[in-house]
C-alpha cells in the first residue's frame, strides 16, 4: 500500500513538471531594417528573407477605408525584439502593432500618430524601441514606439 502511495506521488510530481511550459530565454526577434511590402491584387504581401506572408485587406480597410485598390499602397513593416510587428503606410493615421497567433496576425494596439495621415513614414530599429520618422521632413522629430505605446517624441 505504501509502495503504491509513493509511486502515485512520484507520478504526480512528474506530471506537474511535464505540464509546465518550456520557455527559451532570451529570444530576439527584431529585424535590422524595416521591409517595404506591396500587396498583390488579392491583398497578399510576402517577404522572402523572413518567409512571412499575410493578407492586408482588412488592415487597409481599417486604415484608409479602401480594400479595393490595395496594390497602390506600400506597407512599412518592422518587427521589434519582442516579436511584435509594427505596420504603417503613407496616408495612415496610425501605427498598427500586431502579434502573431495561430496562422494570423492579431492586433495588439493601434497608435494614433497623425490625424491628417502620415506623409512619408519609415521605421528604424532602435534596440528597445521602434523609431518612426518622416523621411521628407527633417524638422519633424522622430517618435519612439514600443508595444506599450509612444515612448518618446510627439504626436503630430
Amino acid at each position, binding site marked *: 500500500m505504501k509502495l503504491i502511495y509513493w509511486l502515485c506521488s512520484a507520478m504526480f510530481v512528474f506530471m506537474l513538471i511535464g505540464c509546465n511550459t518550456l520557455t527559451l530565454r532570451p529570444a530576439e526577434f527584431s529585424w*535590422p*531594417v*524595416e*521591409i517595404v511590402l506591396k500587396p498583390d491584387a488579392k491583398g497578399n504581401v510576402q517577404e522572402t528573407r523572413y518567409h512571412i506572408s499575410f493578407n492586408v485587406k482588412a488592415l487597409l480597410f481599417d486604415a484608409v477605408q479602401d480594400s479595393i485598390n490595395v496594390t497602390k499602397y506600400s506597407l512599412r513593416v518592422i518587427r521589434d525584439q519582442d516579436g511584435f510587428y509594427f505596420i504603417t503606410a503613407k496616408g495612415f493615421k496610425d501605427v498598427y502593432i500586431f502579434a502573431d497567433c495561430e496562422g494570423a496576425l492579431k492586433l495588439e494596439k493601434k497608435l494614433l500618430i497623425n490625424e491628417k495621415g502620415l506623409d512619408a513614414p*519609415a*521605421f*528604424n*530599429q532602435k534596440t528597445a524601441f521602434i523609431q518612426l520618422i518622416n*523621411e521628407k*521632413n527633417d524638422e519633424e522629430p522622430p517618435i519612439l514606439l514600443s508595444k506599450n505605446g509612444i515612448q518618446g517624441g510627439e504626436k503630430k
Partner: protein
Amino acid sequence: MKSLRTMSSILLLVFMASVLSLAQKSDRAIVDKFEQTVKALSQATDAAKTVQDCADITASMKELETEFTPYKDLLDKSLYPDDYSKTITNLKGRLLVRQSDLGVIESQIVRITELEAQVKELSGKIDSLSQTNSQLLGESKRLEKAATIDKAMVDSLNAVIAQLRQNLKARDQLIFALVDSLFQQYDKNVAAMNDVEKQGVVGKLERRNVLTSIKKSISDNLQFLESTSLTAKDYAEIERQHNKFESQWKGIGSKLAAVYLNSKQKKNDVAVIDTMLATWSAKVNEGTWKSLVALLEKGGIAIKPFANGEEFYQNFTAFLDEQIKNPKDESKDIRSKRFSNFNTTVWTTDLDPTWLPVLVETGKITADQKLDIEKKVEAWHSSIAPMSWIYYVIIALVLIVILRAISKFVQKKPKPTV
C-alpha cells in the same frame, strides 16, 4: 554609350546617398541605396571596355566605401546573404576579373584613379575658394563704402583686397590644374579620342562644373578690377595673372571646343568664355595704362598720353631724352629735385621693380626697350648728379697714400754726415 549611362546612374546613386546624410535617415533607404549602387557597379564592371571605364569604376567603388563605411554595422545585419565587407570584396574581385579579361595593367588604373582623386580634391578646393571669394568681394564693396567715411576702414579694405587677390590667383591655378588632371587621364590628344572617350571627358567636365568655374573666375576677376582701391602693384599682379590665365585658356580652350564638338550649347559656352576673356583683357589693358599714368603723375612726370606698350616706350623715353639734354636749360636744382621725386616715388618703388618686368613678361614692351629705359634713367641721373662723394673719398685716399709715401721717402733719406 551603355557603360556611360551606367556610370551616370552610379554617380546619381552615390550623389543620392550623400543627400541621405542631410535628411532624416531611414535605415531601409540607406540599405536600398547601397544595394542599388552595388548592382549598378556590378553591371558597369561587366560592361567595362576600356582602362578608363575600369578606373572610373574603381573611383566609384572608393566613393561607395567612403559613403557607406559609417553604416557598416547596419549593412552587416541587413544585407543577405553576404555582409558589407563580403559585398565590397566581391565587387572588387569582379572588377579584377574584368580587368584581367581586358588586359588592363594595374598601374594604369592606379594612375588614373590618383588623377581622379586629385580632380575631386581640386574641385572641392575650387568650390570652397569660390565661396570665400564671393564673401571677400562683398566685404570689399562694403568696406570701400565705409572707407570713404571712415579712414580706419582703409587698412581693413587693403587686407581684404590682398587676400582676395591671392584667392583669385589660387582658384585660377586650381581650375587649370583640374582640367589638366582630367585630360591627363586619357594619355592622348583630343583628336585621337573616340566618341565614347570624348563623352567620358564631357561627363567629367560637367560633373566638376569646369566651364561654370572658369566663367565665374573671369567674372570675379572683372569685379575685382572694378575695385577703386587697387594699387599699382595690384594692377601689375592682375596683368601678370591675366596673361597667365589667357595662355592657359589658349592651351585648354581648343581641347574643350574639340570635346564639345557635338554640343551646340557647350560650344557657345566656350565662345562666351573667349568673349569674357577679351573683355577682361581690354579692362586689364585699360586699367594698366591708367594706373601707369597715375603712377607717373604721382612722381610729377607729365608725358604724352599712351594706350599701349609701344606708345608708353616712345613717350616715356622722349621725356627721359628731354631730361638728359635739358633743352630748356633748367637749373640743376630744379632738375635734381625732379629726378629725386621721380626716383623715390616712381622708379625705385614701382616702375623698375614691378611694372617694367610685368610689361616685358606680358609682351607689352620688349626686353631691349626695358634695357633702354633703364639706361636712359641712369643717364638722366648722371646728367644732374653732382660728383659722387665716393670720388671725393677715393681722391682723399690717393692723396693720403701719396703723402705717406713722400714722408717715408723723406724719413729714409740718410742724413748728411757732418
